[in-house]
């Protein structure tokens, strides 16, 4: 299983670069994680940590007061202790659609990521908690969110692709190994430019590949980075006929 970090993507066409520094509010019921987040983000000039909360209720008040650009939160928080983070994210989609939400989770489960993207994939990120050890990765995810993009943890995408490819008569069998690799990058939320960079391809070649993949899988929205994350993820997670 790959531990390759998710990478930020360049802003989709038409999106402006975010105002700097990016105002961030974080919430986690664990003191250690809160400390790690504070230490990691404090030293980052592009990011201003304007609030730190220990549960969903505090977070609500803090969001209302601070109007941050991005919220980082733990998936499992009081009071429900189940998928509170996902619920908060979905609520924010209603009340503050301009706020990006990064859900940190201890579960490498696609179901949670899909639940997070249910109300739309723009400005949503699902990362495994251990990713916060890598400051650069965390900052990239926050920046991507602030620009309107999405990020899905590579480990989740890997599991989905592997499982989907095992099924007999899987359409994934029609993809070349390169295309399959590309599909993973798409599901992780990368833009064509970011994919071109990571796979050492020309942007034109990436575009061609992406169109070919989406045609083979009979999917739409090949060029809308934010929407195609969800399309790819849903496709990978659904039960084959």
């Amino acid at each position, binding site marked *: 299983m790959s531990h390759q970090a998710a990478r930020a993507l360049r802003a989709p066409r038409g999106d402006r670069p975010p105002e700097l520094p990016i105002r961030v509010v974080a919430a986690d019921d664990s003191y250690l994680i809160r400390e790690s987040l504070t230490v990691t983000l404090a030293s980052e000039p592009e990011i201003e940590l304007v609030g730190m909360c220990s549960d969903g209720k505090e977070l609500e008040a803090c969001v209302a007061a601070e109007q941050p650009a991005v919220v980082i939160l733990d998936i499992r928080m009081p009071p429900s202790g*189940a*998928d509170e983070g996902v619920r908060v994210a979905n609520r924010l989609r209603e009340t503050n659609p301009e706020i990006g939400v990064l859900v940190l989770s201890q*579960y490498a*489960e696609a*179901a949670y990521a899909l639940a997070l993207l249910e109300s739309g994939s723009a400005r949503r990120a699902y990362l495994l908690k*251990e990713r916060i050890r890598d400051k650069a990765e965390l900052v990239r995810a926050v920046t991507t969110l602030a620009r309107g993009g999405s990020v899905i943890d590579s480990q989740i995408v890997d599991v989905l692709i592997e*499982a989907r490819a095992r099924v007999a008569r899987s359409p994934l069998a029609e993809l070349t190994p390169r295309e399959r690799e590309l599909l993973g990058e798409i599901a992780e939320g990368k833009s064509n430019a970011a994919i071109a960079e990571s796979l050492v391809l020309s942007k034109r070649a990436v575009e061609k590949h992406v169109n070919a993949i989406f045609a083979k899988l009979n999917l739409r929205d090949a060029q809308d980075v934010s929407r195609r994350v969800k399309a790819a993820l849903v496709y990978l997670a659904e*039960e084959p006929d």
Partner: protein
Amino acid sequence: MIVIGGGSLACAAGYLAAVGPRLSARDAALVWVTVAVSVVALGLYAAAGRSGSRPGRVLTAAVVLWLVWLLLASRRPGEFTLGGLLAGLTVPILGYELLASTTGGAFLRSERLLLLASSAVVAICWGYLALSSRHLPLMTAMEKCQPACPHNVLFVGAPARAFVTVALEGLRAGWLAAAVGVAAFIVFRYRAAGVAERRYIAPVLAVASAYALIVATCVALELGGLNARAPLIWCSVIAATVVPLAMLAGLVWERLFMGEALEEFVNQLRDTEPEDVRMLMAQMLDDPSLQIAYSQPAEHGYVDPSGTSVELPGSDAEQAVTAVQDESGPQAVVIHRAAVPDEERFIRAAGAAAFISYENHRLEADLSATVVELAASRKRLIEAAYAERQRIERDLHDGIQQRIVSARVSLGLADDALDTTPTRGRRMLAEIGCDLEDALEEVRALAQGVYPALLTTYGLLEALRSAARRSPGPVTVRGDIARYPPETEAAVYFCCLETLQNVAKHAGRDAATTVRLWEDGTTLCFQTRDSGVGFTLGATPTGRGLVNMRDRLSAVGGSLTLSSRVGVGTVIRGCVPLPSQAPGL
């Protein structure tokens, strides 16, 4: 027959009213009391509803005998002569009444032959004597007309002396044969009857025996030169009235016996094992060949309490079958000596009691088997839980703790190294990072195995799909189900997980699995079907996994079925009852 009997009785009453004034007050009273008592006795008898009996025959015979008595009291020659003629037939008629009263039903061919033959002999001899006598000189003491009785209207002429002697001998032989023969037949009937039926026959048998003795005595007296014909006819008329009373007595005795016997039988049933019920019943019914068998709906047959299959005798066999039924059909059968319907009712009652006792024993046995199985299942579940705890403890100590300890030690070393050889120190720090990542991965896998958080959050389908993605082979999960109580979801989840693990272990590398889940409002079911190598049920030990699954399901009231064929694959299906939802919730 009842109509004929009743009609005869009405005629007798009418005649009695006509000739009544000529009777003495004592005789008239006697006749009326006799008629009333007999009618009441027979009425009671009929009301008691002893099935298959024909009290009408008894009544008819009794009325004919009373007629004889009344006719002989007449002073008109015609009536007197008719009475005299019929008087000779009193013995066969009483024999008919006696036999009719024991069974009331069909006579055996031999019985009918005896009655017809004796009647014919008596009729011929008596007829000859009647035609050849100026007066009917046969019942000297009976009639009040002595010494001036009405003359015999049938008299044709004095007979030859030798013929009279022969006729008298024939008459006596016919009487004796009828009385003794009938008594003997009733003895046979008694011996062939069931225990209850015997109580009914016994009083009639006593009357028949006494009557046979009287007839024999009279015949002996006649042979000694005395004229005993009058007392004989007297006795016959009295016996005709006694027979219905004997029937009534027998009926009462029979019913009392049935009640007591059943009560005792039921009392003894309480302390009797099902295997010994047959013997108890055979003793009570005095029928050693008796068998009792219980319905086995699944096999459409009957078994005895030890489970051995029992064949029912054919319709032409000597043994009869009495079934204990309820709405759903026969529950038990008693195979017994052929018996009259009343006896069968008695047997059916005893059979019903035996069946209830058998059912009780069976339910008790089922219950104790369930309790034993439940205890075993609970023990296995607890053992499995402890084994699981031990596994988690081992994983924590041997895996994760080792990694953390090693990281802690390396951290100290790296700290030292950073001062002296920073390159080496940084490499060591990177290694520590990898160690911790591995530890993290192990913790995640462990936590997932202990209880998948997905199951709590999103339910069975999502949890199983996640497990399916982690399976080495292709697994499809299908279903349209809702959320259920945690214990139900957990039981189904871990059962499916177990089958997925079994497929991974045994079914072969390319085996594809389909997990289907469905619910019909009362039960939640799952079925896993793999396309693996399969196995032959019974030939391959199925191991602990299957026992675990059964235990998990039975703990929430569910059950499991398994089918497998070599080369086709294995299908496992489990169902769990859902708690009924209270309205309004």
